[in-house]
């Protein structure tokens, strides 16, 4: 039986000789660059099917030297070229781009760019990007070279550590959290939602304490503030509602004053149709989403609340295709999720240029395998949810629109409708429910295994929690959105999470890595949403 092999740097089999030659030149490289020359390794794909994916995703620029390299570089005998490997059954796709040094033997100082010929001065964007890539590729290389047991360990979801980190935060936070004193319902949501994603729950005493605390944050005139005695704010309202929904008990759900909430939301509505975050506060797409999400969840969404919101959000879609916080601002992952989710919830997704949105969003996934928030900016674990989630929403919309019907480049064909069909007599608040009833026929449009690779290998912290990127510290916000993004990726092929589970092929690492599915419009665990819907639809 023949095994399939991939040569993991992307050199053609015939170039093995050249690799050997390169190896012998390793010593001629400046000391700080030698670590970039790695031994060619041959990977047996048959016994490591999921690893194949990881390897195939290893950035094609693996041998790319940092472009601000100074010193003499001698690549005699190595020619740069683009090559693809194909092997009978295993295929590695990737380009290897490497420039050979213009001079041969004399030492000279070169600023060496893989992207253009000769000497080039790098911009801040490029420098920062290369910095991040170096750290990320170091991790991937370390993973690739690790023995099988170490690999399994690295790609496992360290559940116990995460639960410990999260629960500790619920009970106690240090003085550095002074600056989050106006965001405590967010802390509750980030932690409680993360715990729920991991399939766990908080103990009943803690649950009661959370309900009681949030009740202290609830304003007598409706909505929730960042802490007891603070003005109600749409973001903390959204967080509080989602936390209580995630806790899910009758006590938790009934602690929300729906009537006053409606009045508060109405107060926050601006003449433009958009919402402001708090009395006298800023108006943006985030405010629109948090208001509409909370209203929909609580079954108080009506035509008065949604009036003209769709026009405002539509006007925030930029020439790039993504959505900005305000009209004219830059397309941004966070606002794109908020805008898209809000539009779906009010059943006006057809006001968006969907092909343009999709194209922008899928290009936000970069060589690091994670998502960036804006064009030419750095990868960040939290965008796994904002961008990944947006793409997942679109997947479902495309399915609802009629099984991948043809789209002309910039305009949807007339038969394409991105709106949800409600049953007769259905209310606006039912859209969220109807949305999840659509089976997801369209396959995921982003690389779900790659994203999981970034999350587990680069964002996950061994001591518990998740971080933005290597070099940054963990925090509860990133733990929440990295886990949310992980869930979205795992369930991306799943037609109907209510009735089936993802296949092991869709989950990177052991199958025990599988999280709970979420409702992608609200970002709460799906079962919890169902329970809340049942509770609130009785009103």
């Amino acid at each position, binding site marked *: 039986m023949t095994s399939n092999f991939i040569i993991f740097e992307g050199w053609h089999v015939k170039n093995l000789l050249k690799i050997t030659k390169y190896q012998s030149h390793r010593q001629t490289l400046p000391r700080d660059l030698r670590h970039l020359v790695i031994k060619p390794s041959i990977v047996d794909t048959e016994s490591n099917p999921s690893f194949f994916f990881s390897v*195939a*995703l290893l950035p094609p620029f693996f041998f790319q030297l940092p472009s601000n390299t100074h010193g003499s570089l001698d690549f005699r005998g190595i020619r740069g070229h*683009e090559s693809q490997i*194909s092997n009978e059954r295993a295929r590695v*796709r*990737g*380009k290897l781009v490497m420039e050979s040094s213009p001079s041969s033997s004399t030492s000279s100082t070169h600023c060496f760019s893989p992207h*253009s010929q000769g000497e080039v001065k790098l*911009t801040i*964007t490029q420098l920062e990007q290369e910095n991040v890539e170096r750290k990320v590729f170091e991790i991937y290389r370390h993973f690739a070279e690790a023995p099988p047991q170490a690999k399994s360990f690295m790609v496992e979801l360290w559940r116990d550590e995460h639960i410990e980190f999260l629960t500790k*935060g619920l*009970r106690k*936070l*240090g*003085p550095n*959290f*002074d*600056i*989050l*004193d106006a*965001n405590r319902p967010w802390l509750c949501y980030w932690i409680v939602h993360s715990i729920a994603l991991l399939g766990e729950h908080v103990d009943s005493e803690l649950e009661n*304490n959370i309900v*009681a*605390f949030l*009740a202290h944050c609830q304003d007598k005139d409706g909505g929730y*503030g*960042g*802490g*007891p*005695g*603070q*003005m109600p704010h749409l973001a903390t309202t959204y967080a509080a509602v989602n936390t209580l929904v995630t806790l899910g008990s009758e006590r938790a759900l009934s602690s929300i004053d729906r009537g006053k909430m409606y009045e508060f939301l109405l107060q926050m509505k601006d003449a433009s149709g958009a919402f402001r975050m*708090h009395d*006298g*506060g800023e108006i943006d797409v985030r405010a629109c989403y948090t208001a509409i999400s909370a209203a929909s969840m609580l079954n108080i969404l009506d035509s008065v609340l949604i009036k003209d919101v769709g026009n405002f959000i539509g006007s925030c879609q930029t*020439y*790039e295709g993504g959505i900005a916080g*305000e009209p*004219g*601002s830059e*397309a941004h992952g966070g606002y794109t999720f908020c805008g898209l989710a809000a539009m779906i919830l009010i059943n006006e997704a057809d006001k968006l240029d969907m092909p343009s949105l999709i*194209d*922008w969003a899928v290009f936000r996934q970069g*060589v690091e395998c994670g998502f960036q928030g*804006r*064009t*030419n900016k750095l990868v960040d674990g939290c965008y796994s949810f904002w961008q990944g989630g947006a793409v997942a929403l679109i997947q479902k919309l495309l399915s609802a629109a009629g099984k*991948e019907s*043809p*789209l*002309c*480049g*910039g*305009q949807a064909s007339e038969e394409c409708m991105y709106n949800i069909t409600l049953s007769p007599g259905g209310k606006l608040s039912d859209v969220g429910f109807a949305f999840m009833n659509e089976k997801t026929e*369209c*396959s*995921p449009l*982003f*690389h779900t295994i*790659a994203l999981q690779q970034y999350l587990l290998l680069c964002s996950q912290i061994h001591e518990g929690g998740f971080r933005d990127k290597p070099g940054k510290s963990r925090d509860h916000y990133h733990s929440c959105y990295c886990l949310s993004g992980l869930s979205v990726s795992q369930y991306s092929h799943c037609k109907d999470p209510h009735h089936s589970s993802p296949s092991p092929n869709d989950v990177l690492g052991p199958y025990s890595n599988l999280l709970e599915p979420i409702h992608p419009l609200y970002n709460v665990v799906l079962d919890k949403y169902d329970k809340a819907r049942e509770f609130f639809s009785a009103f």
Partner: protein
Amino acid sequence: MSSDDGEECLPLSQRPEWADVRPVPQDDGPKPVVPIHYRENFREAMDYFRAVYLADERSLRSLNLTSEVIGLNPGNYTVWHFRRLVLEALNADLHEERDYVDRVAERFPKNYQIWHHRRWLAEKLGPKAADKELEFTKKIFTIDAKNYHTWSHRQWVLLALGGWDDELDYCQKLIENDVFNNSAWNQRYFVITKSPLLGGLQAMRESEVSFAIKAILTNPQNESPWRYLRGLYKGDIEQLLSDNQVPEVCLQVLKSGRNFLFALSMLLDLLCFGFQPSDEFKRIVEGLTNSESSSSDTNLATSVCNVLETVDPLRANYWAWRRRTLPSMVC
């Protein structure tokens, strides 16, 4: 005016001007969750703030107190809101207030509340505030040329207070400094579409297309000018198809054999719009195709999708979906 960095030496309880105020402790309830182990000066400042907030005392000492609290937690929107009420009640000198906000914004540039407060302030100060606001944002951009709040603020200033004269030049400069700065490209789009001094998108299109193409040819792997180029034809597909500069730049990049991902993607979009490709395009794409998968009767768009699926594996699913959803009459 007291210091605004929240680090007064004397605790509030020991300051004579606060002697008549009874601080109000936070009511977290008996068993709070996510309890923060506040620093002592923080806790005290908040206790005194709650006192004046609940009493709705809009005095000078309240104003000073809000400065202290903001220095400790600039994210406390309630304090900012109250500060605005106090400023109005005192009919305070808003130029001094602006100086204060300048200092706080430099300390905490990525904070929503500061920028919202700045906007409120600038609106009150009126059009004569435009210059200083624009200057201030430029200052922030020298540290972080992509700060999102700052760009939103700059756009708001231009729309509400004016000052468009040098904006296109400023964008030019930023793009020259860092051609990958997508915020600068976004701002450029904003200027050419919204500036009352320029003719609008249609009038600016020709020169902007040249500008974008030049940037593309210098760094074909730079996504910003490609999206910008697409944006110049937003809502005007006819123009896009009749202007042969666009397919021309795709061809040039494809011919170079390197960094052609966006060129292919643009070509695909053009084909989907109805672009009729020359034979040269077909030859070039054929050269990129893995000979195993192509057949003589595949249309160009399908071939392009196939190539993209191979050279851009991260988006293999997306390109496969594009291939499945090609319009029927595509070349």
